[in-house]
């Protein structure tokens, strides 16, 4: 089991770190949205006002086959509408919930549209390649966790052991064991539930054989999807308030969080409402479908027992319910996973450095570049993403790429540069990248204050700006950790790799 743990860890560690890191940030994806989309930093509202919202939708997407509205929640003060634009692209805009005022195009994918999808798809859409790579990483996590436990001799002792004053291999192994054992149940549950969320992607044959290839029938039975064809004859839309009230009554007082109008303006239009996921762990699939013209209930759906179990497991992973202490615990456990991967790499490097140097093997050199680029490199890339967001003016476009795409390009290009830097500046890469992290994190906070006026004194004083304050504080905390790490590394001269490298990524 030892060789399996070592090889799987070294080969897949970089991918695992990227998934763990973006997953950890995704715990606060909506707060990152507030930070990166200053025009959505609004005071929370309770209920949206439908007539102005529908006017806005009609103006924005008169011929769209559907309008999907995500309603405001504790963490999101705006209505987000998804639709197909005239070019046929799936797109979204944010709307002020009470007045229906269309907020300016955010020009960013931010947390919910870049960082979160990166976590599960790596943004590699071709043949779902990204999903499969992340799935492989998920299975590898399970294998690594189990083989890690098996090669342990004293698992109980290790739980209480951390010797930061010892030599680097020992202290990094201690920290690797500590974070691995302490958060073992969390990592195991997250890896397995992450796989189970996408069971229709990972085991498509199970669904297609049971349904003879008819995926739509499966989605109807399992998740309650329903629509009927447009008639091509203009029709009216009954008040959505009344439908929402009816849905709320059916669900015992819980309101919808999602409303979709199918074929708006058509006589056979329907309205789909989905029950809020804010108050229970499971991501329920409860739905009510209305006839748009009359407001009559056409169909209701609730999960059957097994699908309910699947939605509960998915809910454990997504943590969409309202629970701030738990959200922070998820964040910290996610970070501990990042530390586990980084220290695993450092242990591998430090136990082989002398031998590889003596035998002239290139392994340490290669893996060290991989480690630096995938650990501190992705942190730098993420911070660059934030900084770019505050620097690019609205309506920027460059060589055919719009503003949102440019931010993403900045992320990937800088990430590549960190790998190049890690191999080129052998021995000094950790230190220099720590300096870069500290500088970029502080720069992000300064730019936020300068471009939006929401500096910490102001954001801490207003409840609706707390997401911004939280992000600024974490950036400053991360900068401080990176700074201390860099200074300590400098004092040690060219000795590489601190044991707490991954800690600095407190985002």
């Amino acid at each position, binding site marked *: 089991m030892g060789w399996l743990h070592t090889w799987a860890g070294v080969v897949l560690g970089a991918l695992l770190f990227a998934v763990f890191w973006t997953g950890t940030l995704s715990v606060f994806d909506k707060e990152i949205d507030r930070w990166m989309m200053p025009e959505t930093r609004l005071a929370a509202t309770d209920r949206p006002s439908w007539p102005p919202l529908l006017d806005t939708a009609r103006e924005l997407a008169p011929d769209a086959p559907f309008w999907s509205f995500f309603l405001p929640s504790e963490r999101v003060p705006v209505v987000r509408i998804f639709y197909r634009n005239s070019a046929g692209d799936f797109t979204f805009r944010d709307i002020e919930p009470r007045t229906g005022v269309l907020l300016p195009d955010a020009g960013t994918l931010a947390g919910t549209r870049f960082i979160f999808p990166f976590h599960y798809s790596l943004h590699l859409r071709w043949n779902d390649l990204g999903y499969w790579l992340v799935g492989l990483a998920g299975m590898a996590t*399970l294998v690594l966790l189990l083989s890690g436990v098996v090669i342990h001799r004293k698992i109980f002792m290790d739980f209480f052991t951390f010797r930061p004053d010892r030599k680097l291999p020992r202290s990094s192994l201690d920290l690797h064991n500590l974070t691995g054992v302490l958060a073992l149940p969390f990592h195991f549950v997250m890896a397995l539930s992450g796989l189970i969320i996408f069971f229709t992607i990972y*085991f498509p*044959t*199970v*669904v297609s*054989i049971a349904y003879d290839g008819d995926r739509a029938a499966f989605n109807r*039975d399992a998740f309650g999807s329903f629509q009927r064809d447009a008639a091509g004859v203009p029709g009216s839309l009954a008040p959505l308030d009344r439908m929402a009230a009816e849905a709320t009554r059916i669900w015992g007082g819980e309101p919808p969080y999602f409303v979709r109008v199918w074929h708006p303006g058509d006589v056979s239009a329907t309205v789909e409402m989905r029950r809020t996921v804010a108050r229970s762990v499971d991501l329920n699939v409860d739905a009510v479908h209305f006839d748009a013209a009359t407001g009559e209930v056409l169909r209701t759906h609730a999960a059957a027992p*097994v*699908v309910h179990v699947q939605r509960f497991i998915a809910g454990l992973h997504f943590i969409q319910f309202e629970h701030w202490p738990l959200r922070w615990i998820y964040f910290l456990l996610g970070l501990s996973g990042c530390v586990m991967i980084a220290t695993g790499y450092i242990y591998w490097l430090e136990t082989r450095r002398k031998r590889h140097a003596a035998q002239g093997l290139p392994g340490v050199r290669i893996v060290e570049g991989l480690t630096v680029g995938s650990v501190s490199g992705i942190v730098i890339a993420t911070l660059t993403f934030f900084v770019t967001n505050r620097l690019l003016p609205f309506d920027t476009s460059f060589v055919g790429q719009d503003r949102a795409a440019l931010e993403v390009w900045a992320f990937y290009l800088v990430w590549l540069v960190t790998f190049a830097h890690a191999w080129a500046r052998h021995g000094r890469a950790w230190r220099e990248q720590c300096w870069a992290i500290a500088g970029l994190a502080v720069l992000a906070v300064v730019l936020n204050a300068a471009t939006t006026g929401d500096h910490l004194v102001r954001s801490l004083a207003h409840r609706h700006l707390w997401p911004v304050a939280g992000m600024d504080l974490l950036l400053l905390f991360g900068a401080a950790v990176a700074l201390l790490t860099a200074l300590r590394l400098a004092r040690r001269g060219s000795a590489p790799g601190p044991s707490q490298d991954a800690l600095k990524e407190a985002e």
Partner: protein
Amino acid sequence: MVQRLLLAIAGGYFLAAGFAALMSLALSRVMPPSEAATLMAMPAFVIYFALLLWSFAERCLTRLWWVLGLGGALAFGGAEMLPALTGAPRG
């Protein structure tokens, strides 16, 4: 080693997916097919996990070939044949 790795990752997946497909088809006689598919697809990950571990622990590569390759082929073959054998319509 490469052979073992391929066997573990591809063969293990083949058998796990085949077993889950066969079982979900069989179970859809007694429950809605959406339930049967979901019920079998979730433990399929655990089965795959167990097969992965076994593939790395088993010394005899030939046995791996037999169990994973033949077992997976039998499971998928059975899933294809089952509707014809029982004469029941699918789904």
